């Protein structure tokens, strides 16, 4: 995946980042809200694509970790209103879950793996739905504060306004994107791609394939958990729906739209996803049928995704 003209690309990215920082000054409140959601979905989808595009594992259950991240953040913020803790706790909880569920899943062939991820994702949903005492059941948890960033006793920064929260999400997302970029261009990234291309060959190159799949799965879970944790303070509520398989479909569609084999694909796709959703939801409440139709259309005709037009093969 060589960059065509690194300087030009870097300049473009730099401009984009600058634009993102200036965004709240230029657009209205609703657009900032949308931008936050796009950033969250980007993080979510990057994790998904590490598994799919880079490691060759298709997971339909990432929403399970998204949900765990969101609920963990919620429980923490309701007890200790500290955003650092909330986000960190959400990520950690999702990571632990990913290690456990990953261990059970990665030892299987790809089809089996995909089936298992759907099942495990829905297991998380079921627990969120039924465990009233802990998760609030189908009502979920409400009144979650948009807690300040705080180092107890030393420093505290309120992020109660949407603008301030936008900057939190922006900085965290940019860090996550940067980390993922470094990761896929690292020896680890190379190893994962080799596993994707030929598991047996990788095995004979000395790579313990299962272990590396588990690593990829855990990282994807961490990213999903981060995305979920970032969502909670935005909405101030969590409901079981965020762990449902229809939520798992969102990073899938975003990645397909933007391009599976391009690093920036999931990010472009997240943007396109919300643009499409925004349009469709104005006409009908039946958004899933359109989501499904787009997935079908992409698979049948246009698997490269939009961003692949711009990337060198």
């Amino acid at each position, binding site marked *: 995946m060589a960059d065509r003209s690194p300087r030009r690309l870097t300049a473009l990215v730099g401009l984009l980042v600058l634009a993102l920082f200036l965004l709240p000054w230029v657009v209205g409140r609703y657009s900032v809200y949308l931008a936050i959601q796009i950033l969250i979905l980007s993080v979510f989808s990057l994790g998904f694509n590490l598994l799919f595009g880079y490691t060759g594992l298709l997971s339909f259950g990432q929403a399970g970790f998204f949900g765990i991240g969101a609920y963990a953040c919620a429980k923490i913020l309701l007890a200790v209103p500290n955003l650092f803790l909330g986000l960190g706790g959400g990520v950690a909880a999702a990571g632990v879950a990913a290690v456990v569920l990953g261990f059970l899943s990665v030892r299987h062939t790809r089809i*089996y793996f995909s089936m298992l991820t759907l*099942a495990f994702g829905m297991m998380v949903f079921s627990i969120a739905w039924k465990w009233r005492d802990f998760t609030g059941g189908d009502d979920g948890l409400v009144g979650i504060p948009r807690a300040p960033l705080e180092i107890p006793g030393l420093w505290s920064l309120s992020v109660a306004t949407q603008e301030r929260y936008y900057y939190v999400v922006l900085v965290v997302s940019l860090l996550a994107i940067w980390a993922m970029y470094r990761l896929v261009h690292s020896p680890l990234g190379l190893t994962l791609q080799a596993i994707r291309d030929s598991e047996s060959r990788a095995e004979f190159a000395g790579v313990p394939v299962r272990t590396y799949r588990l690593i990829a799965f855990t990282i994807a879970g961490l990213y999903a958990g981060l995305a979920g944790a970032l969502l909670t303070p935005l909405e101030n509520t969590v409901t079981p729906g965020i762990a449902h*398989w229809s939520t798992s479909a969102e990073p899938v569609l975003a990645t397909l739209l933007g391009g599976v084999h391009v690093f920036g694909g999931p990010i472009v796709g997240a943007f396109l996803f919300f643009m499409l959703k925004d349009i469709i939801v104005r006409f009908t409440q039946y958004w899933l049928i359109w989501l499904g*139709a787009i997935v*079908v259309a992409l698979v049948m005709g246009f*698997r490269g995704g939009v961003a692949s037009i711009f990337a060198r093969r």
Partner: protein
Amino acid sequence: MLIAELPDFMDDIAFQGLIGLSMAMYLWLISAGLTIIFGVLRIINFAHGSLFMMGAYLAFTFYGQLGLPFWLAILLSLLGVGLLGLVMERGFLRRIYGIDEAYQLLLTFGFILILDDAVKIIWGGVFKIPAIPPFLDGAWRVFGRSFPVYNAFVIAVGVAVAVGLWALFEKTWWGRIVRATASDREMANAIGVNVPRVFSGVFVFGSMLAALGGALGTPVRVVAPGIGAAMIIQAFIITVIGGLGNLKGAFVASLIVGILSAYGTLFFPVFELFLIFAIMAVVLLLRPQGLFAR
């Protein structure tokens, strides 16, 4: 518990086992279809559960809303879903057989999304359950309790399907062709089998089995959107436990899960939901290839 209560307790257990057995039959019907399709075409149709759901909705429409005779309603729903399966296979899946199986999974995942909303658009939300057809109504006295005749009917259908499938694949000409195609499609092709047609046929057959499961549930189970996804997950878990592609395994696993779930509801209602996942996790840990793996 007093000794004197023991016989009652045993009766309860036996009765609950029968309930579980009838529940297992729905799982069996949907898993059988999934297993057969996988065994021959080597694909997993994620939307298989949605076909179960369509079978239920169609049967409800024909029997519950249009008032057609029960057997006719079931037949029509099988045909309807069979047609849907044909469209899925011929129109879409067939065109992407050669490419990465991940895209086949993505395609069928897209189908779930479409079908789930489609039923909401066409039929709206949740329904009343229609009356049980009179000749299957009533209850028998079994183990000191009332065992609905309809449950016995479902068990009978399930067992009949099991025997029928065995006979089909072991004894008939079509069954042998299907088995040959399943084990080596190039060879089958070389000896003159029309492999694409066998694929379509098997896909439709498997889809109709799922529809049968859905349709049978019409007078006793609530038909609602979302059961498609719930059922496919149950079918997955059955195949994990029984071994992917293994029909006998699917039958036994359905029995295990159905009966244990019934006991779960009786003794540990809180964990009943979790139970099926717990069984799967245990199997994954101890015997990952399934209980009856080849």
